């Protein structure tokens, strides 16, 4: 079980509160986690990754275990602590004012 934390506005869009728990079949990677997230909450398609290119949207960052994974290979395995659910996979909006 992987725990995923998404920004406030995406929780509102998906009509959920709190963390999301996802069961991932096969290797636990950033791609497989995001695929599972979008499959459960289709309204999030296109809000984290581009619909076509699947690239991360510019003003979102992807963290886990105090590491910035934003520019890492999306098919690399996530840390064991994320795979086990001990640590969350964090989707963070860039800071901005106004």
């Amino acid at each position: 079980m992987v725990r995923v934390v998404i920004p406030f506005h995406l929780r509102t869009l998906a009509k959920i509160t709190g963390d999301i728990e996802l069961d991932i079949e096969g290797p636990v990677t950033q791609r497989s986690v995001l695929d599972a997230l979008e499959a459960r909450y289709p309204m999030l398609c296109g809000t984290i990754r581009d619909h076509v290119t699947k690239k991360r949207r510019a003003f979102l960052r992807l963290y886990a275990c105090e590491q910035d994974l934003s520019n890492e290979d999306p098919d690399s395995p996530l840390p064991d602590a994320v795979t086990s659910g001990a640590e969350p996979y964090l989707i963070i909006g860039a800071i901005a004012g106004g």
Partner: protein
Amino acid sequence: MSRVRVLVGTKKGAFILTADGKRQKWEVSGPHFGGWEMYHLKGSPVDPNRIYASQTSGWFGQVISRSDDGGKTWTTPGSSPEELKTPEGWPKGESNKFVYDTSAETGAPLTTHQWYDGTQHPWEFKRVWHLEPSLNDQDTIYAGVEDAALFRSSDGGKSWQELASLRGHGTGPKWTPGAGGMGLHTIVFDPTNPKRIYVAISAAGNFRTDDGGKTWKAINKGLKSPYLPEMTPDVGFCVHRIAIHPTRPDVVYMQLHQGGGIYRSDNAGDEWQEVNGNLPTDFGFPIDVHAHEPTTIYAVPMDPMLRVPPEGKLRVYRSTAGGNEWEPLTRGLPQENCFINVLRDAMAVDTLDDCGIYFGTTGGQVYCSPDGGDNWQAIVRDLPGVLSVEVQSLK
């Protein structure tokens, strides 16, 4: 008893303002989509409880939402559990998927437009500026987007396809963004001819199809702009807004950028004539037409350099002659220290017997005149900056 429902898009959410036919006492609902930039909301003429909304975000991109109960609840089309269970397999989470059609089959392999440095630049989707529901089908809706293109959904917003022949009709490589981006911001249907659609693009100009979107032509003859090197180019005009009256769809009114001003065409856009007359300035964004008087039009002139009301006086101008002769409407509007703006999609008219005129400001006020512009009152004063205003007249 008639009612009105005003749909207000702001920089930080949407608000729904309702009143009875007197339009004196208002109820305010919102914010809906709090924190999102709400470029536009508009209801279906076929089913007024069907409302479409464009919400955008610098972080999360574009989202299309839909209400089927007059704005009480909202969904992203094609994403509810019920829809996902259908055996036909609705498009899943594609209500915000706007992909330019570059296929050779549809005749529009165009992929670039002119950039600020004169080079060609790829078309890049940024947001939906304007939503225009079909006059005849509640599930059909058109979207004007940045970078400028026209999309259509025939399934209630679940999926979108580009009408690519607009970009591909020939002048596309000459289109260029202004400082505010390159957006298709106005879509006008001819109610007497379902195959005729007008669209307006900043900074390209006006375009018209007479065959339901298969072919398009630029309709900018007679316009002038001191910002263009040529005197009479085909395209390149920063048109701010166009409007028609449904009983006279060949008469088109326009607010053009400064150096142009208010224009009117009496032949469906084939030729334009300037009708600024005695307006205090030629700059402004919205223009609209009285619901029952086809030659009565409204504009909100702004200082062309400052983009605020001249002399700090907020004045709507009305012409009952289709332009040239204008009168300022001030009763109930601030006449000192007013330095807001009124954006292109932020004016609307209702269709009650006494036609109501509405507009929203970048300062967060939404004003209503229940008597065609003679008297105004602020419905609300402290919303986030208003991006769009639409009104529904309800039985």
